[in-house]
């Protein structure tokens, strides 16, 4: 059996969908950020697979920048979670409906 690019793309699609389902079902903000990480990893896998398929370094370069943006996103997201949790211990994302206008 030869591993083709389609295998990687299918795996990335499944991983992305699982992350999306987790984002829709979980209420803990920390786990929701983890699900976003899952989706970003699926996209990274797609970038690398298509870059390998095309013999192009651009896919791996994109993954590099995605990594940086993901790290920044986690840092700011966790800071927001810390700021909210400090005021309301054990808050879920449902409780944040108080932020509506």
């Amino acid at each position, binding site marked *: *059996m*030869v591993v083709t*690019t389609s295998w*990687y*793309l299918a795996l*990335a*699609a*499944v*991983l*992305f*969908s*699982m*992350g*999306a*389902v*987790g984002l*829709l*079902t979980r209420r*803990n903000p*920390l*786990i929701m950020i*983890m699900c976003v*990480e*899952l989706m970003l*990893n699926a996209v*990274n*896998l*797609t970038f*690398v697979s*298509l870059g390998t*398929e*095309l*013999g*192009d*370094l*651009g896919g*791996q*370069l994109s993954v*590099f*920048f995605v*990594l*940086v*943006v993901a*790290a*920044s*996103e*986690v*840092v*700011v997201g*966790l*800071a927001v*979670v*810390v700021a909210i949790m*400090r*005021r*309301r*211990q054990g808050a879920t994302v*449902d*409780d944040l*409906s108080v932020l509506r206008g």
Partner: protein
Amino acid sequence: MDAAVFLISAAIVLAGAGGVLVARSPVHAALFLVQTLFGVSVLFVLQDATFLAAIQVIVYAGAVVILFLFVIMLLGVDRFEDLGVEPIVGQRPVAALIGASLLGMLLIALLVSVDGPTGAHGANAALGDAADNTRRLGEALFTDYVFAVELTAILLTIAVIGAVVLARKVRGPLAPLPVVVASTTSEDPEAGDGPTDTTDGHDAGEDT
């Protein structure tokens, strides 16, 4: 050989993702996330993206997940949550439906509708062999993409400053956010799930 490595890694990746979805404790979810990240890293090695595999382990598993665990422990939210309750009725079936349709659309878009990727081969920079991977990435990043690298440096600086500003302890009457949150929750008893206005001195500016 490649197929065996791929199948084992894919099983690890999907098991970790499923664990993140159903873990009752945030700590367990973070550890399942590490499992998924390691599996993806193995897949990167399998595709000769050795530098990204190392970065994946160091930055994601080493830094990001540690940050998650640090925040979990700092906040003391490392307790089990009850997944049996479903606060919004019908949310999970709808989410499963959306996920399944998303998966279907992605599979169609990625596998069926196009006959392979249609981009120009090696348009930006040629992909070398695995031993040459890091050098080629570095050369491309610091020649063709140096402006983007500088922008990400600025982004990281902004993120660090933003995190410090957001997460620092605010004292005295210059704290606008606690006043808003506390007054809103005290007016709306349905939205609250516990005492909120007795935290450590954040409501000092409430009377002013």
